[in-house]
């Protein structure tokens, strides 16, 4: 009982604190006229169990690009709608709420990259458990290069069924794109890669020279 009250109090305190920290990130970075509207959209997302970081990033992006306040608010509102659509899609495909924030942003990205909703649902359902980001990007990469969406999804789903690790699914789409670069049609490329599964060319690793010159960004990444 006491624990429940404590958790409820902590939750009541956490939301205003989170809102304050978001306001702190936005102040001075976006037009002050946009802050109240953006802030309320972010709070709405938090109340609905949606990730707020994509909305903060969208607002910061608009501010950095010196976009007018109204357009920033509109873009944040659009992002909120995409996150809602993504959640609905995931629930339809079989995910139980609350849906993981990473999966929501993945599906929102897939929608923005132009993947048809039925294809996303198929991939989500076929993969079952998260993470699905690599699979979704692999299908989206193929579709962006004029591959048939259903055939692209078939290839990625088959790769998973044949035991290809999820973090290597981008290598599957890359292998298909290489076949197109060698002069094959999209259909031929898919057939060639399908025959090679589950074997894939090794992904390129960062060279020692690259790592030597690498540095971390000054601002912590989200």
């Amino acid at each position, binding site marked *: 009982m006491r624990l429940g009250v404590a958790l409820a109090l902590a939750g009541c305190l956490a939301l205003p604190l989170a809102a304050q920290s978001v306001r702190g990130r936005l102040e001075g970075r976006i037009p002050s006229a946009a802050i109240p509207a953006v802030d309320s959209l972010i709070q709405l997302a938090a109340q609905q169990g949606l990730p707020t970081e994509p909305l903060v990033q969208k607002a910061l992006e608009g501010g*950095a690009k010196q976009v007018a306040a109204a357009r920033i608010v509109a873009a944040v509102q659009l992002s909120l709608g995409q996150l809602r659509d993504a959640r609905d899609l995931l629930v339809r495909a079989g995910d139980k709420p609350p849906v993981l924030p990473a999966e929501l942003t993945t599906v929102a990205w897939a929608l923005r990259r132009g993947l048809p909703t039925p294809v996303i649902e198929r991939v989500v359902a076929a993969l079952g458990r998260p993470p699905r980001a690599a699979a979704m990007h692999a299908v989206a990469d193929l579709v962006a290069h004029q591959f048939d969406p259903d055939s692209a999804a078939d290839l990625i789903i088959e790769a998973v069924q044949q035991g290809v690790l999820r973090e290597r699914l981008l290598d599957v789409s890359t292998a298909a794109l290489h076949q197109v670069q060698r002069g094959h049609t999209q259909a031929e490329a898919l057939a060639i890669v399908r025959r090679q599964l589950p074997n894939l060319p090794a992904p390129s690793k960062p060279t020692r020279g690259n790592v030597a010159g690498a540095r971390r960004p000054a*601002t912590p*990444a989200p």
Partner: protein
Amino acid sequence: MNAIDPRMHQALDGELDWDAVPAELRRTVARLTAAAELLAAPPPGLVPSVERRVMAEIRRPAPSRARLLMRWFVTPRAIIFRVRPAWSLAFAVVAAAVTLFTVGDQGPELAEHEGIAQFVGRFPEAQSVHVVGTFNDWRPGSIALKDQDHDGVWRATVVLPAGTYEYMFVVDGERWVPDHLAERLVADDFGRENSIVIVRPARR
């Protein structure tokens, strides 16, 4: 000590004929002659005498320089180090400095879920190029690209947590340009396109 009869000396030295040797000395002279012959004979097994062995060694040709060098290399030797503590400390300091300098040159240590993102753009007329995106809160100026060869190709290599990021280049602090080399583009909802980079963990 008994003196030897001088006639026996003469007989052994061949100065006295056997017939002239008195009968009482003949037996002794005969024994001494046989003993002398035995000592003069070479020993069985033909072992060379010390003299012959020494002479053979002297006559042997001198070994070549290569053989001498090889012998020098394979012969075990004792090496003695005499160390001054002050010089030892100085050597340790120099060794530590060289090690630290070398390690620092190898770049940052990557964590398990970190990867490398390379940003490359061709901007021949640019004075400055920065990359901004969701990895640095779209904060212009935080990650600068460099044109080290002055060939108009600007580069930056950045360590990021594995994940998907949207970004753009900012040229000369005011011109926003998508990465034309990026394989993935997405509408930015402000009328332009962002590039997408997927950072995969370097340790797999």
